[in-house]
């Protein structure tokens, strides 16, 4: 079975000369289908940088990356946008919903960019909002929702297109304990349904939900172990 993520000797260098920063120094990582991976590490260790490369939001300076058997290094920008749309669902620390746009319209967006017809879009987006417990908030705009609710909308948006990979960069970083457990429960559900998840977190209690934890130090993987669950 091809792994969902296969990284070989990935490096990322920001800037040049005096201000050059080696954010990643050679990452080798394989994530299999159905894995729930947590990435930990100190601030500045390169977690987000790695996540952005996995999500095809950014391009590695060197190394080789295959997603679901597709060679990402060789794709141009328009092919990458299709990959992001079909294969990946994102959840960000800062929610990143489109402002002044209803929850329903936000959740519909990935389907819209995929070319799904209007009626099916609405049905699926409504169902996704229902699944995250926001059936009664479909026509609220982001600024009319609490942080926890906004993050659940973001989860619904990441889910609706049924991606093979769910990426979450500190999804609970801005949430209280109640909303944190709501969001983590949702991710557990998805994991139970067989979805592959990669999540960045600073908190051990959050990482404990995953079944594999890797720790980054200065752009290198320093530990990689399975949790005992």
């Amino acid at each position, binding site marked *: 079975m091809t792994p969902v993520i296969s990284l070989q000797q990935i490096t990322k260098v920001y800037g040049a000369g005096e201000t050059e920063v080696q954010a990643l120094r050679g990452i080798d990582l394989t994530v299999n289908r159905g894995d729930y991976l947590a990435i930990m590490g100190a601030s500045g260790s390169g977690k987000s940088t790695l996540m952005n490369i996995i999500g095809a*939001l950014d391009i590695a300076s060197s190394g080789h990356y295959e997603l679901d058997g597709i060679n990402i290094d060789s794709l141009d920008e328009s092919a990458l946008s299709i990959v992001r749309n079909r294969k990946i669902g994102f959840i960000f620390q800062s929610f990143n919903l489109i402002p002044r746009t209803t929850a329903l319209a936000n959740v519909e967006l990935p389907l*819209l*960019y995929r070319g799904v017809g209007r009626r099916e879009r609405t049905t699926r987006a409504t169902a996704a909002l229902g699944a995250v417990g926001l059936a009664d908030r479909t026509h609220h705009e982001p600024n009319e929702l609490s942080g926890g609710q906004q993050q659940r909308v973001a989860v619904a948006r990441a889910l609706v297109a049924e991606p093979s990979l769910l990426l979450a960069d500190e999804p609970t970083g801005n949430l209280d304990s109640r909303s944190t457990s709501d969001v983590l429960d949702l991710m557990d559900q998805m994991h139970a349904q067989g979805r592959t998840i990669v999540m960045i977190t600073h908190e051990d209690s959050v990482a404990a939900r995953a079944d594999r934890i890797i720790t980054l130090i200065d752009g290198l993987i320093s530990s990689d172990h399975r949790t005992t669950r």
Partner: protein
Amino acid sequence: MNIYETLRIGLRGIGANRLRSGLTVLGILIGVAAVIILVAVGNGTTQSVTSNLESLGTNTLTVRHGTFGQPGAETRTQFKDLTVADAKALMDADVAPDVKSASPVVTSQSTCSYEGTTHATSITGTWPSYFEASNSKVSTGNYFINDDVISARRNIVIGQTVVDELFGVVDPVGKQIYCDGTPFTVVGVLESKGSSGFSDADDTAIAPLTTVQNHLTGYRSLDSVLVQSSSSEVMDSAQSEVYSILDDRHSITDTTARDYQVLNQATLLSAVEETTSLLTILLGSVAAISLLVGGIGITNIMLVTVTERTREIGIRKAIGASKGAILGQFLVEATVLSVIGGAAGVLLALIVTRFSVMGITPIVMPASVAAAFGVSVAIGLFFGSYPANRAASLRPIEALRHE
């Protein structure tokens, strides 16, 4: 993603940013409306002044009595009246072959009344040839004739404004009016020449020269002689014939110090046309500047919009929007806003130009409508798509990090 969906996303974007969208539309609206209105006003002024002058006849010369501040006028001892004999001399077919008619003119500012209604107007005392020379046609009733002049009959032809003021809906022909106490019989009504902004060509009355002199002005010098040349081509030779005859009769030796002045209608017309077209150009450039300023406003708003929404672009790219989808959204937004703004501007201009300003009826030039609309839409499109294109080309992570 089809065009319909792109359109929907664009329209949703407009709805999501109402204030900004409103300001953009307003900027374009004002620019477009200003261009159309100002050009229409300039154009209307030109047309009104020109038609005013043309209504006086394009092949006439006006000989005016007086010195009009010419240098040397004070030192001249001779100062002869302009007389009926002068007018007759101008009609000598041998000496002045290019003069078709010469009509002596006296004018009197008089108050006329009919059954208790009074109206002050200017009465021109002249000969029947004046009607043709001054392009004045009678619409109902008759002209007065030479016989009326010889017998000094108190017949009068009145303009439409005088009819409206004194008679209202009553048919004035055959009625008697009193002007400065003298009874006149209305024999005809002049065809309307229309008011033309600066003066009302219809607020006038024309009566036989002798009658006006007898009862209203007395036998002083003529105010002017209206000379009609046989065609507009021979205006210049007619003018020199007038000069040579009158110089001789008035014993003028120094041609810079005449006691009369000849105004050439054609020269006047072209001079005025030059001035008014200059006015149109001036107003047009003021308008063009306002369109430009409006355009800079649009550019500014569009730039701010895209910068402000770079993060939004990043989010959209992160969930799989292609560059084309992003560009399409901003193009739709910019197009819809500039078309709405442009159309509203045209509409506003068309409404405003229906009203006359200070007696000038603006005349809309179709070219200015097309140009203003086209330029504004082009500005909106270009400055809407250029920054959007820049933002859409960013890597998603760069757009997302944007603050």
